[in-house]
């Protein structure tokens, strides 16, 4: 059984009178420990796919299963709880709460667990250490560079030890060097920590890091396995 199973999913959005069909009968699996890059033109439904997997949005038809649980059938409060334990999400920008320090931002998902204060502090420190920001713990987001902010967001995405990490254009606003750092980090998380990763990207170099590249176009997924190797 694959970690993520998408079966016969239709997704359409109603905007005023008209309906936008994003996919029709989408079926695909993502294996445990895989690292997938999702590419495709703007508006092709990449973000929507991540949202469906994270339970942030519901399919119009069909089922989405993650780790054996049927995401598409859960209630809002079940979803919140499940998401806290299962998913780490990183967006292109606006990931961090500006009023919290790096440490507090990373600790956020742990507040939803039963961990005691000392354990939360320890896990937070480890996560920040993994992303190489142990010395920036008490900085606020505005005191960090874009790349550092993104690494804090990644630390937050892994701190609760989720099985699945979803990234929506994580390097979209970063310069080449910062992108490199973030991508190296993702590869480490996949290789060393065996995290399953789904990453939406427009960046060919980012896609090159992944072990599987999917192209989404007009609601159809095209596989391009190990296509580009640097």
């Amino acid at each position, binding site marked *: 059984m694959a970690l993520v199973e998408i079966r016969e999913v239709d997704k359409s959005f109603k905007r005023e009178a008209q309906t936008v069909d994003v996919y029709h009968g989408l079926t695909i699996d993502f294996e445990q420990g895989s690292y997938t890059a999702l590419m495709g033109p703007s508006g092709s439904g990449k973000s929507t796919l991540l*949202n469906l997997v*994270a339970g*942030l*949005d519901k399919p119009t038809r069909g089922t989405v299963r993650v780790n054996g649980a049927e995401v598409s059938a859960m209630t*809002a*409060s079940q979803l*919140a*709880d*499940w*998401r*806290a*334990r299962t*998913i780490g*999400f990183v*967006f*292109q*920008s*606006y*990931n*961090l*709460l*500006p*009023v*919290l320090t790096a440490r*507090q931002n990373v600790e*956020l*998902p742990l*507040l*939803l667990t039963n961990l005691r*204060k000392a354990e*939360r502090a320890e896990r937070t420190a480890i996560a920040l250490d993994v992303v190489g920001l142990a010395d920036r713990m008490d900085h606020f987001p505005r005191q960090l560079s874009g790349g550092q902010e993104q690494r804090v967001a990644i630390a*937050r995405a892994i701190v*609760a030890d989720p099985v699945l990490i979803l990234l929506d254009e994580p390097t979209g606003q970063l310069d080449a060097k910062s992108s490199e750092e973030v991508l190296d980090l993702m590869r480490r998380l996949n290789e060393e920590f065996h995290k399953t990763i789904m990453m939406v990207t427009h960046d060919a170099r980012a896609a090159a890091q992944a072990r599987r590249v999917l192209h989404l176009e007009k609601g159809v997924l095209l596989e391009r396995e190990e296509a580009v190797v640097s």
Partner: protein
Amino acid sequence: MKFLPLVLANLKRHMLRTALTICSVALALFLFASLRTVSTTLASGSEVSSASRMITQNATAFVIPLPQSYATRLGSIPHVQAVTWANWFGGKYGDGKKFFAQFAVEPESYLKMYPEFQIPEDQKQAFLKERSAAIVGEGLVRAFGWKVGDNVTMQGTIFPGDWTFTIRGIYHPSQKEYGDDSFMFHYDYLYERERDRVTPGWFILKIDDPNAAPLVAKTIDDEFRNSSAPTKTGTEKAFAAGFASMWGNVNLLMSTIGMAVVFAILLVTANAMMMNQRERTSEVAVMKTVGFSDARVFGLIIVEAALISMTGAALGLGGAILLPIVTGFGTGGFLPGFHVTPGTALVGGSIALLLTVASGIVPAWQAAKLPVVQALRRVE
């Protein structure tokens, strides 16, 4: 409460805005509590007064005295059991900053008339024996550090010159509302020096049946109608209420202003809270993505609203409670003790609670219902 740092961080985001909001809540509740205290104090004045005591004063004006000879004539009116009298002294003590009432009283009958002033028996005897003796309320003792045996010199304003009294007793009011800041001394002490200039300011009568009060009042006022000093007689309650009416329709005014102010502040606070929330749409979306449930988001925003209104309320109500204590502000024996009643504090607390709900519920609801996907699309 592990979420507290998150709530506090959000409050600190706009320090000035938060501080101003708290200040306006504090001000609203301070005004509310103070205004309401004025009306409860006035009301308690007529509530605590005894139904079996009546006051006879000059019909022309309260400040014009009555002839001494009225004492005996009042005593012979049916239903009247006892008669005493008092006079307003109007002295200035020290720098005169703290105002308190001084009454020249007919000692023995006055203390019998007012059992509410509790004095140890030996002090009472010492007071009665000595012409220049005085008894004072515990409140004055606290304010001036007096003790039994002290000589106190005051400057007369109505009766000129220095007046020295010896404190022989300290009274404790059996009910707070009777006030503990009056100063009472022998009428004779005033009389022996001022002779022609002094006659009783008002008479206090004890009647055997409260229901007879209207009859007694009519009999007395009829009796003196055609004399040189016509009288106006009423129950003690009416007398205290008369003070209240000097302020105009205080109660209505106070509560109208109070409510208008509180309502205005409520709108300001609610608006500030909603502004805060609008700025935070994307942050709420991020929190939900991390796994915060709708209910939790709702709760956090309500707690934030509660912290603002409760802090404001604590400051405002605390200020109103402390004000009369710290400044020693009182009505100086004219009216019973000026203090915030538990009822006022309770209503103030309820207003703060209402404010929490009113200012927090809309933003909290909006944040809880915020669809994450839509919110994220808006920012990216």
